[in-house]
């Protein structure tokens, strides 16, 4: 009995030491500080980092040839500009940007300086400052070499488990097996917690870049509020329980959104709240792509989330593409009550841009569905006049009476 107790205590001590060893939590300073000035071209150090970069170089080769990458020089240059404005020209110079056509909210940066931006991100931010907040956060991971630290943490944690499993199997008492289980949970928990602490550190760095840039640092917190509101709107429309933004699951890779919104607001330099947020520049840069990204989003069939995103983007003013997207969203959900709304939204789009052919198509189809066939056919005729060679024009032509085709 006594022997078992001593063993248990010894194990508890080991568990504690190991858990502490693989989670190097930096002491929290009150103000976010920038790392030392950029020291020029960095080359990987040691076998682990050289290996990681090697793998990453291979990934980048594949990425550069990927059919999902949006090869638009202007858009890529704009993303690079926002990154440079956020983190400084010296830091951003060696970074390569790849914009990937995927309608999800994400961006990432890998060890060799490859930045991936998913197209869905463009719908979740509304100005340069919010966009810069995301890019700065990802750059923070890169500058702190988080991938390497996480890899080393996982390796030491799992090495330890392998050895203790071996030792536990030859141990003379049953208590060992239980202690091994405890240790296992502790190590895995530490690995996940380590990941969350890295996210917090990247958040702090991100806000430090923003504080030192010409962007409005309060935007970082605003962006997280947008993300939470979108998730709530999506859940509400699906009749699901409201998501909880405060709890941390055992395996959560990121800190809860509410915590992030809160500390990002607290860390933003209060004097800089009056800075311009760059909404006009953002709109101008995204104008050619916004209809495409909106279309990608609404076709995901997430009614609540999409409607929220459209309204959120429209906070700085409704545009024809936003009304068109909303019309398409309501028309494709296809409840009878949606058609009345869809017709109004298409009409709003046409008011703002009387040459927007897809709006006439949507309006025409919607009116036909609600029994207003004559008006619907008029709208479809207008669509055919504006866009006679569009895919589907021949089919639409069959919907309008013969002899009146344009």
């Amino acid at each position, binding site marked *: 009995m006594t022997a078992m107790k001593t063993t248990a205590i010894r194990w508890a001590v080991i568990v504690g030491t190991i858990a502490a060893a693989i989670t190097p939590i930096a002491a929290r300073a009150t103000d976010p500080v920038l790392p030392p000035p950029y020291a020029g071209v960095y080359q990987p150090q040691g076998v682990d980092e050289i290996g990681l970069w090697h793998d990453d170089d291979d990934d980048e080769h594949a990425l550069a040839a990927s059919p*999902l990458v949006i090869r638009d020089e202007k858009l890529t240059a704009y993303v690079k500009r926002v990154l440079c404005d956020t983190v400084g020209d010296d830091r951003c110079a060696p970074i390569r940007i790849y914009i990937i056509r995927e*309608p999800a909210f994400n961006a*990432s940066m890998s060890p060799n300086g490859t930045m991936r931006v998913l*197209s*869905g991100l463009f719908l979740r931010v509304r100005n340069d400052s919010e966009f810069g907040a995301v890019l700065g956060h990802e750059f923070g991971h890169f500058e702190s070499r988080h991938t390497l630290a996480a890899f080393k943490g996982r390796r030491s944690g799992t090495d330890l488990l392998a050895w203790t499993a071996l030792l536990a199997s030859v141990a003379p008492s049953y208590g060992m097996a239980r202690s091994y289980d405890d240790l296992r949970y502790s190590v895995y928990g530490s690995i996940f917690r380590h990941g969350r602490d890295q996210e917090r550190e990247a958040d702090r760095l991100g806000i430090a870049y923003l504080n030192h840039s010409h962007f409005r640092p309060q935007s970082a917190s605003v962006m997280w509020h947008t993300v939470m509101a979108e998730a709530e709107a999506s859940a509400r429309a699906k009749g*699901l329980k409201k998501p909880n933004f405060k709890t941390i699951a055992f395996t959560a890779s990121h800190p809860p959104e509410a915590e992030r919104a809160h500390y990002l607001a607290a860390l933003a330099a209060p004097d800089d709240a009056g800075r311009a947020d760059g909404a006009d520049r953002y709109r101008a840069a995204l104008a050619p792509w916004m209809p495409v990204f909106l279309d990608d989003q609404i*076709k995901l*069939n997430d009614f609540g989330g999409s409607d929220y995103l459209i309204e959120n983007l429209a906070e700085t003013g409704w545009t024809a593409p936003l009304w068109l997207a909303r019309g398409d969203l309501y028309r494709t959900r296809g409840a009878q009550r949606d058609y009345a709304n869809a017709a109004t939204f298409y009409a709003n789009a046409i008011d703002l841009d009387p040459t927007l052919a897809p709006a006439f198509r949507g309006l025409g189809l919607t009116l036909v569905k609600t029994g207003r066939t004559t008006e619907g056919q008029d709208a479809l005729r207008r669509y055919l006049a504006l866009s006679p060679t569009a895919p589907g024009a*021949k*089919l639409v032509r069959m919907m309008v009476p013969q002899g009146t085709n344009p």
Partner: protein
Amino acid sequence: MTPRLPHRVIVAALSIALVAMPALAHKLREKGVAVTVADSSLTVTPTRDWNRLGQSPGKHAETWTLDGEQLDDVTFYAGIAPGEPLVKERSKKRDPLPKFTATTQIVEIPELLEGTYRTYKSIGAFTLVSTDPVKFLGHDGVLFTYDYTDEDLLTRRGEARATIVDGKLYMITFDAPRLYYFDRFLGDARALSGSATL
């Protein structure tokens, strides 16, 4: 905002493989023998041997292939009623798919397939290449082609024929990698969908 954990993918792939194992009862569909598809009255007469996959994508759907569904995939959607999605939803509540409705127009069918593919496969790169009128099953229908890039980064091309009969949707799609396979088997796929009767 970090890359997804690869081991999750491996676990998911393994569990799918394990679950799918008992259902691998594929059937041979022999040349010249007329058969009904997707538990409906839709009948086709293949001009060469095809494999019918044991697992169907939905209640009113059935998939045939020559070399495996990743390389060439003919899917029959037969008698989709208003209010139903094209394929079985993974979760009715969490990941709902677009539904065929009583007011869906023939010209909107390509949109329905596009929305289903995008939602089901979480893809962002889907382009409708062409849409044309066609006679299908003796009714006015739509013939459309599309390109999309799946998670495996392989660009696939598809050609579909669809129509609405008695308020129900009938559609036959052929999807294959744009490189080599699409052109290689398009003739066989067209012969198959051309033989369809109700």
